[in-house]
C-alpha cells in the first residue's frame, strides 16, 4: 500500500485540528493554564493533580475519546493523521487532561478486537483511562504485574495522568504471556500513589495491585500490543511536536520584541540561527509524524519504522526546542513567572516516555541495518537535488 500525497489529511481533519486549537485557546489560554497548574511554586511541592474536569466533559462531548476507534466499534473512525492533528493542538496548549492516555488506551483496545467493545464504550462515554504496565525502569516489559487465578498482583510505574483517570488498562503476564485487563481504579486492592513530578501539566503515579479480581479481555494481547505500539509513539510525538511549535513561536515573538544593544534579539545570528535550527528540527519531526500516522492509515508495513523515526525525532526536538526557548529568553526564561517552564517540563517528561530517542534509533537499526533489505531506506538523491 502507498501513502496518499496529502497524507490523507482531508478537510475534516483540518476542521478538527482548527477547532481544537480554538477550543484550547478559548478555554484555557496560557495565563490561565499557569494560574491553574503553577500557582504553587515550591520545588518540593509534592504530588498534584491540577486540571479542569468540566473541560474534559466537553471534550468527551465533542467525541474526541472515540476518534481513533473505528465505526465498527462504535467510534468516530477518524484517520490517524486527524487524531495526530488533534494531539498536536493538545501539546501546543500544554493542556492538562487524560486525552493522550485515553487515546492510547483506545488504540490498544481497538487492536484487541471485539472483546474490548465494552471498554471502548466506556471510554467513548467519558471514562478516562490510562495504560498500566511500565516497570520501575520505565520499560514496557511484562515483569511488573502478574495475572494468576483470576487476580492481578504487582506494581506498575509512571502511570500517566492516573489522577485524572477512572480506568486502567493493565497489561500483565500470565505464565509469561501477556493478558490485558480492564480495571476500575477504585477497585478493591488497587492502590494509587501519586508521584511528585517536575511536569506541572500532567500527573503520574505508581499503582499497586493486590489480589485485584479481573478477567482478561478476549483477544490476542501479544499482537494487539505490537500493532498498537506505533500508535502510542505517534500520539505522544504529536504532543511534543505541538509543544515544540509553541516554544518556537513564543521565543520568536520574544526575539522580535526584546531589544538589547538597540537591536531586537533576533538580529543576532546566535539567536536567529538557534531558532532556525529549532524550526528545522520541528519540521523534521512533524513531517515524520504525519508520515508515520499516514502509514498507520495506509501503509501498515512501514508504520513501525516510521513511528520509530517520529518518536526519536520528536524526543530530540522536544529537548532542543525547550533548551533553546529558555536560553533565548535569557534571565526571564529562567523564572517561574515566564510560561516557558510549563512547556519545558512537559517536554522533558514526554521525551523519555514510551522509549527515548536512542532506544527508538536502536530499534530502527534492527529494521534498517539488520534486515536483509536495507531497501527499506528510500534514499533521496542528494547530489542531484543539491547540485
Amino acid at each position: 500500500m502507498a501513502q496518499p500525497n496529502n497524507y490523507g489529511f482531508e478537510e475534516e481533519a483540518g476542521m478538527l485540528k482548527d477547532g481544537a486549537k480554538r477550543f484550547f485557546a478559548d478555554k484555557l489560554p496560557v495565563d490561565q493554564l499557569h494560574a491553574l497548574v503553577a500557582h504553587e511554586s515550591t520545588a518540593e511541592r509534592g504530588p498534584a493533580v491540577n486540571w479542569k474536569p468540566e473541560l474534559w466533559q466537553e471534550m468527551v462531548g465533542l467525541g474526541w475519546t472515540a476518534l481513533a476507534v473505528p465505526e465498527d466499534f462504535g467510534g468516530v473512525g477518524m484517520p490517524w493523521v486527524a487524531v495526530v492533528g488533534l494531539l498536536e493542538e493538545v501539546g501546543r496548549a500544554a493542556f492538562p487532561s487524560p486525552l493522550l492516555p485515553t487515546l492510547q488506551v483506545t488504540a490498544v483496545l481497538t487492536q484487541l478486537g471485539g472483546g474490548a467493545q465494552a471498554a471502548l464504550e466506556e471510554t467513548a462515554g467519558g471514562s478516562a483511562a490510562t495504560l498500566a504496565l511500565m516497570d520501575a525502569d520505565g520499560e514496557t516489559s511484562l515483569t511488573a504485574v502478574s495475572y494468576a487465578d483470576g487476580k492481578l498482583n504487582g506494581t506498575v510505574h509512571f502511570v500517566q495522568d492516573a489522577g485524572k483517570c477512572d480506568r486502567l488498562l493493565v497489561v500483565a503476564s500470565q505464565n509469561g504471556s501477556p493478558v490485558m485487563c480492564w480495571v476500575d481504579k477504585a477497585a478493591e486492592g488497587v492502590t494509587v500513589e501519586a508521584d511528585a513530578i517536575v511536569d506541572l501539566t500532567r500527573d503520574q503515579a505508581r499503582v499497586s495491585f493486590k489480589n485485584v479480581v479481573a478477567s482478561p479481555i478476549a483477544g490476542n494481547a501479544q499482537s494487539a500490543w505490537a500493532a498498537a505500539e506505533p500508535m502510542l509513539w505517534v500520539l505522544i510525538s504529536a504532543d511534543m511536536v505541538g509543544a515544540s511549535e509553541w516554544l518556537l513561536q513564543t521565543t520568536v515573538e520574544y526575539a522580535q520584541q526584546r531589544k538589547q544593544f538597540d537591536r531586537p534579539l533576533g538580529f543576532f545570528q546566535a539567536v536567529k540561527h538557534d531558532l532556525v535550527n529549532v524550526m528545522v528540527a520541528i519540521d523534521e519531526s512533524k513531517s515524520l509524524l504525519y508520515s508515520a500516522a499516514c502509514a498507520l492509515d495506509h501503509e501498515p508495513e512501514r508504520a513501525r519504522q516510521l513511528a520509530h523515526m517520529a518518536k526519536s525525532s520528536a524526543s530530540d526536538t522536544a529537548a532542543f526546542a525547550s533548551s533553546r526557548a529558555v536560553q533565548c529568553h535569557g534571565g526571564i526564561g529562567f523564572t517561574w513567572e515566564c510560561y516557558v517552564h510549563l512547556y519545558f517540563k512537559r517536554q522533558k517528561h514526554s521525551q523519555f516516555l514510551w522509549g527515548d530517542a536512542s532506544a527508538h534509533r536502536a530499534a530502527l537499526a534492527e529494521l534498517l541495518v539488520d534486515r536483509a533489505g536495507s531497501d527499506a531506506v528510500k534514499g533521496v538523491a542528494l547530489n542531484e537535488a543539491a547540485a
Partner: protein
Amino acid sequence: MSESERKDTPQQAEFRAYCRDWIARNHPGEPPVRLPIAAIEIMSREQMDYLQAWQKAAYDAGLVGSDYPEAVGGGGRKDCQRIANEEMVAAKTPFYPNIIGLGMAAPTIFYHASEELKAQLLPKLLSGEEIWCQGFSEPGAGSDLASVQTFAEKKGDKWVINGHKVWTSLAHFADWMILLLRTDKSHKYDGLSYFVVPIKAALGKGVTVRPLIKITGETGFNEVLFENLEVDDSYRLDELGKGWQVAMTTLLHERGAGELVTPRAGGLKSKSAHNTSAKAVIDLARNTDRAGKAMADDSVTRDRMMRLAIREEGLKENQRRSRVAALTDHPMRLPLQNKLLMSELAQDLGALAMEIEGPASSLYLGDPNAPAGGQWPLAYMNSYGFTIAAGTSEIQRNILGERVLGLAKSK
C-alpha cells in the same frame, strides 16, 4: 500505484502513462561514457554530447518543458512536469545536462523577458541544444551578492561590460549566460540590471573562461572575465535597475521554491555514479570490518547512521508536506529549508562514511584499493560546494530566520 499517482487528475494520469511508455521504449540503458554524479560535474565534450542528445530526445517527446506554453517551445500542459520527472527518476534515466538553463534561466526568462526573447531563447534552452551558465558571484560578492561590481556602461544601444565572475558551472560548454550586472554605481540594490548574454560567440572576443580547480582536484567551475564585451540592450530582462528583483526569481527557483517545476531526470544510478544516501552508508558499514567486527554491528555507528537516516527521511517527507497547505503554516517554510538540509546531510553522510572506512578513507580516486573507488572522500569534500554555493548555510539560516520567522535582518 506509486505514492504520487493516486492523486493524478485524468490529464495527469494519461500523461503519466504516456511518459512511462515513452521512457520504456527510449531509455538509453547503461551509458557508453562514464557519467559524473551531477550535471555541474560534466568534464568532457563526449559526456556533454551524449547528455545533450538525451535531453533533446526527451524534449522532443514532450517530457521537458511540459508546463511551458507552446508559444515558447513548451508542452502547453498544466502541472505535468512533475509527472514526467517522477517517471524519469523512477526509471533511473540519465540526467539533463542543461541544469542551469532549466532550473534558473528558464523561469527567469519566462517571468521577466519580452515575448520575442522568450520565443528566441526558450525552445533551444528546453531542448538542451543551447547550454546555459550563470554569472552572479564575484570574488568580492559571495554571500553579499548585491555587491557585484561587474559593470555595464551604456554606449548608444549597447552596453559595454567589464568585470569578473566566478563559480560559473558549465561556462566552458555554455552558449548563453544569465548575468547580473551593475549599471549604476550609486545604488547598491537598485543599481543592478539583469542580462542574457551569448557568451560562446564572444569567447576570445571580450570573454575569457578559465577553469577553477576545486579542493577535490576536479574542475567543473570556472571564472569568466569580461573585457569590453558589447551586449545589445535587447538582451536586458525587465527594467533597468530591476536586476535584483529578477535575480530573486532565479534564486527562488534555484532553491526549489519557485512556481515552475524544474524538469528533472537524473535518477540514473549507473555503476559509475556515486550515491550519497543513508542506505549507501549502511551498506558501507555492512561491508567494512574493524577488528574483525562489521561496523554495522557497532552500536555507536548504528546510532549515528540512524540519526542520518531519520534526517534523510524527514527531508523527503518535508518535500511531500510542503505541498499540503493544511499542514504548513508558511508557504516558504519548508521549501526554503531544502537546500540547507540536503547539503548538510550530504556533508554529514560523507563524514560518517569516512569514519566507517577509517584509515582506508585516505585512499583516493586513483588508488586501486580505495573502498568505493575513493568516492566517499570525494563526496565529503564536494559537500562543501553544496554548503557554500548558491547561498552558504549561514545565508540560508538568515533567510529562514528573516523571511519565515520574521526576525530582524542580520545585516
